[in-house]
């Protein structure tokens, strides 16, 4: 068992290396580099720099060396010093900008994941045990709607409805007076008041998908002979359902946490842009549009690594809950 977990952790290391290489390739992909973009920017304002100056600029950023060297330079600093390089756009170390935003993204993603479960599990179980009932149909329709509406569209509509009918300004995570204030209870409360919108937006899409999965899993499990055995033991319906099939049906659930996380983080990035949240989304978008490569790379790398850790955790969770895997 311990050995299994250890093996699983070891397995994720090559994946992380691959991710870092992929990230580096992505940030190298745009034709030209920051200096090119910088020159273009200067030219727009009517200024210009000579070719020599450009070369010097490149050398000062280390952009003239072979790619492998640049990669090693980049990744080794991250691993050994937590140094993600300098944001060429903000003229600040990337790590200064990164962590606050990542923390908020993770918080929103985790909260949405929890909300997703709180919605999906009971409704999935209900729908399966009362198949073809009125509420089953209702939840099915709602589930399909949730699956059909893209996150950012839902955010837009909520924003519009909130503004037009409730005079409530949806968007951001803090009211202006708290944005730069130090952490206090009042600020925390303010955060909660703003937080629910992105969390609900992200959770609806996920919950709609998981609801279908849960319902299908439950229907399959309810048809298994051990359910009949449980009834024959003298258990009531509620006990039978929650003690046995739910336990089993949850297993594929745990195993999909790993996939739910990338989806939620993706959702957060785009929703954050719409709702103007101080999470990774807007910053990543800006970095990409400006070809601020270390900044973009840092975000993509960290977000990907967190999803790998999420997958890892879900695998371990699955091992703990399913004796069939535990003893394999």
């Amino acid at each position, binding site marked *: 068992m311990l050995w299994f977990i250890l093996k699983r952790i070891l397995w994720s290391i090559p994946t992380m290396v691959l991710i870092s290489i992929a990230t580096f390739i992505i940030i190298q992909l745009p034709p030209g580099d920051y200096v090119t973009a910088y020159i273009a920017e200067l030219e727009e304002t009517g200024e210009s720099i000579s070719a020599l100056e450009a070369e010097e600029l490149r050398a000062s950023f280390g952009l003239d060396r072979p790619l492998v060297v640049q990669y090693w330079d980049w990744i080794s600093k991250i691993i050994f010093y937590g140094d993600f390089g300098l944001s060429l756009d903000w003229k600040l170390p990337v790590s200064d900008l990164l962590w606050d935003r990542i923390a908020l993204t993770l918080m929103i993603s985790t909260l949405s994941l929890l909300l997703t479960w709180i919605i999906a599990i009971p409704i999935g179980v209900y729908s399966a045990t009362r198949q073809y009932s009125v509420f089953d149909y209702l939840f099915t329709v709602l589930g399909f709607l949730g699956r059909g509406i893209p996150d950012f569209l839902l955010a837009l509509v909520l924003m519009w409805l909130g503004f037009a009918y409730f005079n409530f300004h949806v968007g951001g995570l803090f009211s202006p007076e708290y944005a730069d204030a130090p952490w206090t209870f009042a600020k925390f409360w303010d955060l909660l008041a703003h937080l629910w919108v992105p969390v609900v937006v992200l959770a609806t899409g996920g919950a709609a998908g998981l609801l279908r999965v849960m319902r299908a899993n439950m229907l399959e499990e309810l048809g298994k002979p*051990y359910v*009949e*055995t*449980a*009834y*024959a033991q003298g258990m*009531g319906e509620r006990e039978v359902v929650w003690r046995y099939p739910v*336990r*089993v049906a949850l297993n594929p659930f745990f195993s999909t946490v790993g996939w739910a996380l990338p989806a939620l983080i993706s959702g957060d990035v785009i929703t954050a842009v719409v709702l103007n949240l101080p999470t990774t989304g807007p910053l990543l978008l800006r970095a990409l549009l400006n070809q601020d490569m270390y900044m973009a790379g840092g975000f993509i790398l960290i977000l990907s690594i967190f999803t790998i850790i999420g997958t890892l955790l879900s695998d371990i969770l699955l091992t703990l809950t399913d004796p*069939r895997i535990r003893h394999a």
Partner: protein
Amino acid sequence: MRDAENLLEIENLDVKFEMRDHTVHAVQGIDLTIKPGEVVGVVGESGSGKSLTARAILNLMPRSAQTSGSVLFNGRNGPVSVLDHGRESRVMRELRGGQIGMIFQEPMTALSPVHSIGQQVMKTLTLHTDLRKAALEDRAAELMDLVQLPDPRGMLKKYPHQLSGGMRQRAMIAMALSCNPSLLLADEPTTALDVTTEATILNLIRELQEKFNMGVMFITHNFGVVAELADRVTVMNHGIIEETGDIDQIFYDPKAAYTRKLMSLIPRLPEYAMADNVEAMVPAQPKEASREQAEVVLKVENLKMHFPTKKDWRGRTVEELKAVDDVSFDIRRGETFGLVGESGSGKSTVARAVLRAYQPTGGSVQFKAPDDKFHELTELQGDSLRKMRAHMQMVFQDPYSSLNPRMTVEQLIGEPLVNQGETNGALIRDRAAMLLERVGLNADMLSRYPHAFSGGQRQRIGIARALVTNPSFVVLDESVSALDVSIAAQTIDLLRELQETLKLTYLFITHDLSMISNFAGRIGVMQKGKLVEAGSTVTFFANPREAYSRRLLNAVPIPDPRRARALREAREQQALSA
């Protein structure tokens, strides 16, 4: 006719299901009684309604079921009319597991995969008794001991997937008996088990039944099992009771035509297999005599089929499964060689390796083709192997998955011809039509798809497909095991008749000793990948050499209650004197 002495009284039970455009009467006018301490066997083929009847006793039918009639259970607290109480009612929940125990067919899936055996047994106990904590665990361990599971305390911590089929079924029985029920419902509890395991489980059920003086309703399709266990027998067919009677009356003087038909069709071990005086009983075997003159057509020597199960990081095999380990036998023209064994013994792998579904990892298989020369099958490759396949064919076990549902019968039967390079469509069609009639179906069914046919008919189509290229050698891989008794008997007749007229040589893979004893001229017994014994059927059944063969033979349930009783008494005598 209420009788206080009856433990269970079912009167005029009807169960029906309303479908969109018609009504399905699953069970009609059932009358059945069980007295305390009585074992009632309920026998019937699939779809006879026997399982549904058992579920009606617990009021655990599908929700869409509509019932009428009455089911009266004389419980500890007075009689309960089961159908008058709700499915979810307190009364019913108290009966289930508390006074009526039930065991199911599938020991793997009938236990929760995510709870330990202990948790599941103790759950029943907490539902119906006041036992808690240490006392609860003691009682659970006691039950493990009762069903003769080793290391009772340790067993409580195990999960179902860690146990063998027989052990799971024992745990299931422990669960059913945990609250001393007065009635036990057993729904095909041994059908999924190997024959030797089946015998021990049947013994256990009988022992416990006697010990606690339980009434038992034992549902099965196997007359042999009923003969071992039942006091009275009810025969069901298509939802109605054909006949109920004392066990000896049913077996030796069946009244209903249906019972008589079934009795005549069930495969039995030959008399000499059970006689003490072998010489007197052995019949003159014409097959045996002719076999000696016939030439050998298949020589299997030191056949090995090993599958890697674990590889190291360099891809080298460090552990392997010896599915077939050094097996040698030969088969003569026109005979049937029966290869028997329990599940996992490697018998099917032998057949597949011989037919080159796999490349054997060692040994040789020599096959005499119509050109009268021996060909080393293990060395054939590509086109020469493909050509050779015309002469050796296979009939599968599962009539459903062995026919491609997306092809018509004509395409299915004609396919081997196409594969052998035949391109003349009219010729293929004629040949397919001819074979379809040969196996007892109509030639005008050629354009139908497999979904239009029943299991038995599909198996006939499978036989026609196997014969279309005029093979001389056919492997029958459990070819009648998935069929009901009567259909199996007809299929066997067909196979026998085809063998005689077409001079076919069969390799018959089966787990069913009774069936093969009437069919094969010679028999081989496999255990754990090895051929432990091979010889003529008569010698084998009259006087098996190996201990394992004897164990296998003794375990076969015999549809002869008098004999079963005599054997049991003899065994008890033995046990007493020992």
